[in-house]
């Protein structure tokens, strides 16, 4: 661990040398009525009378109390009022401008659309979220790109929504929740993958969702520290399911971006899957290649929260094993565990390596 930061450390991304693509930024509506302009009157009424219906104990907050209000960094509350991430001008001033962000991909997590149990309401919410992103964000700052919100439990409706929005090239990925009703590789979700492949849209699978299953295979843990790690383990859950169900045999061009679900677990997990496949592969005869092949070809990872091994060189080896072309820089602004592009990497990167992770890989993947 370093001591005093007096000037950007050796590994820092200086703002000049690249210009950054930030693959994970969270917009929030100003208040509970901000989406109303995009919701039919009857659904506004429904919102008022019934609200959301989720598989968790609390109506207005997450299962585990976070480390800070609204999960956000404490300095991101806009001076003009409203919650962090709700004020574009402040986001520009605090985040987009100073870090020379060329493109930022919005990931709207609020409202838990992917996990809403009332499917008609979920469909209305998905459409509202997408229209809200266009009108209040994309149309107001040319640097912003959106994630297409869909009802993953209703793939037919999801495909319709994809068809509706995909014409707008500023939607750059389809957003799914890893904590899903069923493992995401299962066939019920395949229509979404078919559409994603057809439109050339990656899946952006960001750690969130309330699927109704215990957060770990051993049950519900006690602490947020455990919950934080358990959400990260949604990554292997998605990967295992999509690979083993043969999603990439059926949709070989499908691209999956695991957002904020870590990356350092991937090499070990891929080795494990390969070893298991050697012995138990007959159970999944639809796979024609070792699991690690699909992983190497079809998955990408955003970098935040950055790993900080005591020996920073271990991180470099981790990148080697993952593939340097798989890493997409992200900040997670304005959440508490966000990364600052100047200090996130505790290992020394060459300018070319920095540029690849902070910009080049995302340009290639999202065709910016």
């Amino acid at each position, binding site marked *: 661990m370093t001591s005093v930061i007096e000037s950007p450390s050796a590994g820092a991304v200086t703002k000049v040398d690249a210009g950054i693509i930030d693959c994970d930024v969270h917009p929030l509506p100003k208040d509970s009525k901000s989406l109303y302009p995009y919701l039919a009157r009857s659904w506004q009424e429904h919102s008022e009378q019934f609200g959301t219906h989720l598989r968790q104990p609390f109506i207005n907050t997450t299962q585990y109390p976070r480390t800070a209000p609204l999960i956000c960094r404490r300095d991101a509350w806009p001076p003009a009022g409203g919650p962090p991430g709700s004020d574009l001008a402040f986001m520009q001033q605090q985040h987009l401008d100073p870090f020379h962000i060329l493109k930022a991909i919005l990931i709207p997590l609020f409202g838990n659309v992917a996990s809403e149990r009332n499917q008609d309401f979920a469909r209305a919410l998905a459409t509202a979220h997408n229209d809200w992103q266009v009108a209040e964000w994309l149309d107001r700052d040319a640097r912003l790109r959106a994630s297409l919100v869909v009802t993953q439990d209703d793939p037919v409706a999801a495909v319709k929504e994809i068809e509706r929005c995909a014409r707008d090239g500023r939607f750059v990925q389809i957003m799914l929740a890893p904590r899903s009703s069923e493992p995401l590789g299962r066939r019920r979700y395949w229509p979404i993958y078919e559409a994603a492949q057809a439109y050339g849209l990656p899946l952006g699978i960001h750690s969130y969702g309330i699927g109704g299953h215990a957060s770990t295979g051993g049950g519900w843990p006690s602490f947020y520290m455990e919950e934080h790690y358990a959400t990260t383990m949604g990554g292997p859950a998605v990967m295992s399911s999509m690979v083993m169900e043969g999603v990439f045999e059926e949709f070989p061009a499908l691209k999956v971006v695991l957002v904020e679900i870590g990356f350092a677990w991937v090499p070990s997990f891929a080795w494990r899957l390969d070893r298991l496949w050697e012995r138990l592969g007959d159970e999944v005869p639809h796979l024609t290649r070792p699991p690690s092949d699909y992983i190497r070809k079809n998955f990408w990872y955003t970098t935040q929260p950055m790993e900080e091994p005591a020996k920073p060189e271990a991180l470099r080896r981790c990148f080697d094993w993952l593939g340097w072309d798989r890493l997409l820089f992200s900040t997670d602004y304005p959440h508490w565990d966000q990364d600052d592009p*100047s200090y996130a990497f505790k290992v020394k990167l060459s300018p070319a390596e920095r540029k690849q992770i902070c910009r080049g890989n995302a340009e290639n993947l999202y065709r910016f």
Partner: protein
Amino acid sequence: MPKERVGLVSEIPPGSNKVVTVRGREIAVFNVGGDFHALLNRCPHEGAKLSRGIIVGLPESEVPGCYQLSRPGEILRCPWHGWEFDLRTGKSHCDPQGLFTRQYKTSVERETSPDSCGDAGLTAETFPVIVEEAVVLVEV
């Protein structure tokens, strides 16, 4: 080392801080129960402005399930990742030797200035009043 003026003591009540920029360096001066502590306003982890952190106590425990909060108001939780710093030393709680923010010496001195609020026009005779006020200084 040259002393720089931070501001009046009365401007920085206990539990608050004031940020000054000295030769390009942001320094946050915290009032911790009447004592002033100056820290480089940049978290040694990823550079967050410490002045935007939250002032808390130190949670401690010798037995799982038994919680104690000691040193109220003396700990700063970074506004981003929540790492704890001792406001009196600038050292992080989890890794005091390896992770700390730079600390500067402060002092409180009396500053004198002529009183400006005499209402000279209406009185026959005026006396110049010298007001003594406490100011916080930081050595940079």
